């Protein structure tokens, strides 16, 4: 009898343990979007009470995050789920830190290729296998101060800046702002080459330029296209149209304090603007797709995606895997709220919804989804990766007028091929 009772007790304990899965979660989302993700996680936990709890930790963005992931996977202490930049997936696969997302997984989550934009889907695919589930795409956009543009006489009737369709037009807007007494017509992160990579890569994309062609860096006339992009930006510096030696926080501050008329920055700064505007501490602002400086529209984008680390016991068929897939699928379905962080949800079902089309400024710039370009697929790619790093070294001197664009391109070519 005693024996039986013991067995019964054991069984109850086992079911209780099964019913409550704890999913260990790591992300690198701090700031405005981090706050929104925390609130999403709370909603998830509330909706899955007694079944699944997310135990989330936010770590430092960039090299510290990715190094920690690599180490933890090697010793089998990785989390159950983590956020990952799509641009770093080729590198991650070569390091063996990710588990593929199988067909069965996709089916279980109720998601498939059709739910994502082609560029986004390709960004998480290596050799025909997917290694992450895209949550969003986060391009860079042009933020602008309507009050200053109006004073300079460069505001369209629909409230967007004039001259977004050509280099001449955009430069006219910059010059008009300068003439109207705006100290910095454009706030640019000119002290941080890592950041400027995004702008410069977009400008290359506007000329159909490629960084990596069949394993060769800046092949053919791509070097020239890079030089064109750098020359335009250097000219803006020479004409005193953009802020020099400005680091990231200072760039945002120049814009939000009204000292700069426009700013090129990631959509992740949308929450900053929204929160300031809600407190009544910001001018009338907006955000649009980057201006066309060369042949056609093109914008650099990356994607925050969910990945399952390798070597962590979250294998197919386990209850833990079911819980992790439920987390991904639930957050993907509810990513409309994530859009308030400025990002464009990767799930096209969400972006097609009525609510999303009402959401500003996202609705204004979401058209760029068709024109976005991702990093080339290579293990040298990715935010805070080696290629990013090499190029950034020569961007800062060029953008601040210390180095000739042609020389910068030569140096970049040398160093990229020396990696």
């Amino acid at each position, binding site marked *: 009898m005693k024996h039986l009772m013991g067995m019964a007790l054991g069984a109850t304990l086992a079911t209780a343990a099964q019913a409550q899965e704890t999913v260990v979660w790591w992300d690198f989302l701090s700031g405005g979007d981090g706050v929104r993700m925390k609130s999403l996680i709370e909603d998830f936990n509330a909706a899955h009470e007694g079944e699944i709890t997310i135990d989330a930790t936010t770590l430092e963005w960039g090299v510290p995050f990715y190094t920690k992931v690599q180490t933890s996977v*090697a010793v089998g202490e990785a989390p159950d789920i983590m956020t990952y930049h799509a641009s770093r997936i080729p590198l991650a696969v070569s*390091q063996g830190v990710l588990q593929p997302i199988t067909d069965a997984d996709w089916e279980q989550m109720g998601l498939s290729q059709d739910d994502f934009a082609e560029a986004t889907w390709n960004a998480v695919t290596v050799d025909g296998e997917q290694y992450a589930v895209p949550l969003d795409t986060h391009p860079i956009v042009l933020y602008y101060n309507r009050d200053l543009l109006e004073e300079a006489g460069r505001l369209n009737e629909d409230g967007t800046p004039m001259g977004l369709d050509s280099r001449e037009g955009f430069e006219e807007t910059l010059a008009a702002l300068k003439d109207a007494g705006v100290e910095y017509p454009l706030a640019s992160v000119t*002290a941080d080459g890592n950041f400027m990579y995004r702008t410069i890569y977009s400008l290359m994309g506007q000329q159909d330029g490629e960084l990596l062609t069949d394993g060769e860096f800046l092949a053919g006339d791509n070097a020239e296209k890079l030089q064109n992009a750098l020359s335009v930006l250097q000219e803006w510096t020479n004409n005193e149209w953009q802020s020099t030696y400005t680091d*990231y926080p200072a760039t945002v501050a120049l814009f939000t304090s009204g000292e700069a008329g426009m700013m090129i920055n990631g959509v992740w700064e949308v929450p900053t603007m929204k929160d300031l505007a809600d407190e009544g501490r910001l001018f009338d602002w907006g955000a649009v797709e980057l201006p066309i400086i060369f042949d056609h529209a093109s914008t650099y984008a990356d994607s925050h995606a969910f990945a399952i680390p390798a070597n962590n016991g979250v294998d197919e068929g386990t209850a833990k895997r079911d819980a992790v897939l439920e987390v991904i699928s639930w957050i993907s379905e509810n990513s409309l709220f994530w859009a308030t962080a400025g990002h464009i949800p990767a799930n096209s079902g969400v972006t097609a919804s009525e609510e999303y089309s009402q959401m500003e400024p996202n609705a204004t710039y979401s058209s760029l989804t068709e024109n976005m370009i991702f990093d080339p697929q290579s293990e040298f790619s990715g935010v805070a*990766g080696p290629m990013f790093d090499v190029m950034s070294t020569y961007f800062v001197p060029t953008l601040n007028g210390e180095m000739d664009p042609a020389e910068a391109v030569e140096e970049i070519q040398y160093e990229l091929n020396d990696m």
Partner: protein
Amino acid sequence: MIRNARKDTLIAYVLIAPFVAIYGLIFVYPTIDMFILSFQDAPLITFGPQTPEWTGLDNYTRLPDDRRFGTAFWNTAYFVLLTVVPGTLVALAIAMGITRLSGRLQALVLALFFLPYILPVSVVYRIWDWTLNFQFGIAMHLFDVLGIDRVPIFKTSTWFMPAVAFVTIWWTCGFSILLFLAGLRAIPTEIYEAAELDNAGRWTVFRKLTWPLLWPITALVLTIQLILQLKIFDQVYLFSIGGRPNDNLVMVYYIYQRAFQNDDGGRAAAIAVVLFLIVIVVSVLNFQLLRLAERKT
């Protein structure tokens, strides 16, 4: 009682065993591993598809042509030049001043000079970024008032190293001041009284008495500073975040970059070995030179 020599030895071994074990585990073993790694084309962490391969001396032969290694090497040398001797002299001058004060005033002034030393490097970075930031730094507003052009101090390669060296001296000289003060107090006052009776001037007293008697301390401070500054990393890393790290590379930063950013454990280890040898050679050389100087005086 008859001492049992064998038992004594055994006890001695048992007593030092924990230390030797820990020292072996966290110092000797990693050091040997670093040497081995430096002859391999190895990732940062050996796991999954990545396996290290023996490449002989490749990681070393690449270094002379490696531009970043050159930058890191010369920047480190420049930084050592800017901090070691100037930092020691500044600390000596301040200590000489403090030693003239007495009582509470002395304690207060000493505390003021020592205070920066207890700050964590992140706080030091914040303070100086607030002061010298190109757009919003307090000092820049001062420049504006004085009609001087603003200087993007941490964003140009001309100003970066001197500025970081200055901040480092400000931050760390408190400790050297303490050492000098202890040294100054150890000099018997009778000697100074005798010099006074002989009508010796201040400069003569310093040159003939204080300086030679303080020399062992000066040599110690110089050696500590030299080793510390050869291994400079934190300040350079923090002040170049969001800026131009590759123009400001120093040796340890380059090791970090190769290992963690480029996932290149082998090449990182080779640079670490080079730095290891430099530190050994330089500190032995430094020590011998200083001993030589001591004998002369």
